[in-house]
């Protein structure tokens, strides 16, 4: 009756750096004072999907990005890999590679959880 969740594939360090973040094309962007408001449609699942309309559950959610967070979001162009973004952030803010990598990965995982960004694995040549 209950299906086990498939195990997450292991991602090693090198593969993580080769992943390419992609912006969610459906995200609406509005510039606000010293930042940008990003609005993303919500997808309710299960019981919440059935009750979304009668309960008037919210259909979208907005996030305001500022400063380095917004710069990083803007730097996601569908071509730069996680490693490229880490190098870019390290150079811009004089961070070490591992500091920058940890900050980029942490920030991207926050954006992914909120549906603003997805990551693609680069196809082997």
């Amino acid at each position: 009756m209950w299906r086990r969740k498939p195990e997450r594939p292991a991602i090693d360090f090198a593969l993580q750096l080769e992943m390419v973040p992609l912006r969610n094309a459906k995200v609406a962007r509005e510039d606000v004072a010293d930042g940008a408001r990003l609005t993303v449609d919500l997808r309710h699942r299960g019981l919440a999907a059935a009750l979304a309309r009668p309960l008037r559950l919210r259909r979208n959610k907005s996030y305001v990005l500022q400063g380095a967070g917004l710069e990083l979001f803007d730097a996601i162009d569908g071509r730069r890999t996680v490693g490229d973004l880490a190098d870019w952030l390290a150079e811009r803010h004089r961070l070490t590679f591992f500091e920058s990598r940890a900050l980029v990965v942490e920030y991207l995982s926050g954006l992914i959880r909120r549906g603003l960004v997805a990551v693609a694995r680069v196809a082997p040549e």
Partner: protein
Amino acid sequence: MNTRPVAWFHAQFEVPAEWETVRHSANRLAGRLEFATRAGFQALFSWQACRREPDAPRMMLEFLRREIAKTDPERARNLRDLRAGRVGAFETGHAGEGLPCLAARYLPAAGQYVQWIFPRFDAARFAREWSPLLLGTRPNDGPRRRWCLFGLDLRLPDELDLEHAEVFPADVTLLFESRRKLAVHAHRWGLPEELLRGTTLADFYHRVLLRRHSVVRRVYETALGGRRAVGIDFDRRGEFQLDTLAGRRWKGRGTAWHDAAEQRIYAVEVAGRGRVPDLAPGEMFSHVAA
């Protein structure tokens, strides 16, 4: 080859500049530092308290046997001898190309057995990179012990020992304490534009001290090594054990400054039970005083 200094507990040395510390221990008796680059793991430095000088070749042989046994138990059983050598005070040993290479020595004054482990022996790298590292590895002692890691470079009285290290990306705090109830907190933050967005260094540092359960008494402008700095006098309860509940307040003085060229914010607090210890930030942060 560009190098950068590392000094931690009992030893100090110079590692290639691109090596970063990815794991650390804050234990005086036994621990390790691991170094890596984006290409992967580069080296491990470990220390272990020992009353007498151990049999280093035998310990290295046992280590190699255990490592080789993970992939080739037959070869591990037949491993009888190391290809041993000596670099400075270090005894070195390996079992061939592609297998780990070890170097160990005993520091009699500290009573510590220290060891370097390199993941794969490579004769060219050994000569070019590892030999200078081993030759430069020396005891970290003297009246002012050096603590140089994660971008912080401190010289502290020997009585102060590392109690706690909070290491996050671009956010490092080291806490040192002595038996005489003297404490030093050293901080280093990256991304100062983000931390100081819409606020001042004084307000930022004030908030940091409040988060550490301090009662701020006075905020003032000061100077350090020609830079403008913020000084804060505060009182604080002890952070560990019964001190958190029932200890007397410690009196402290903090100094924070923004190094715009390096794009980092530094801060150091000294606190003592009953009175502020006589330790100036310029004495502790050698590179700032210069």
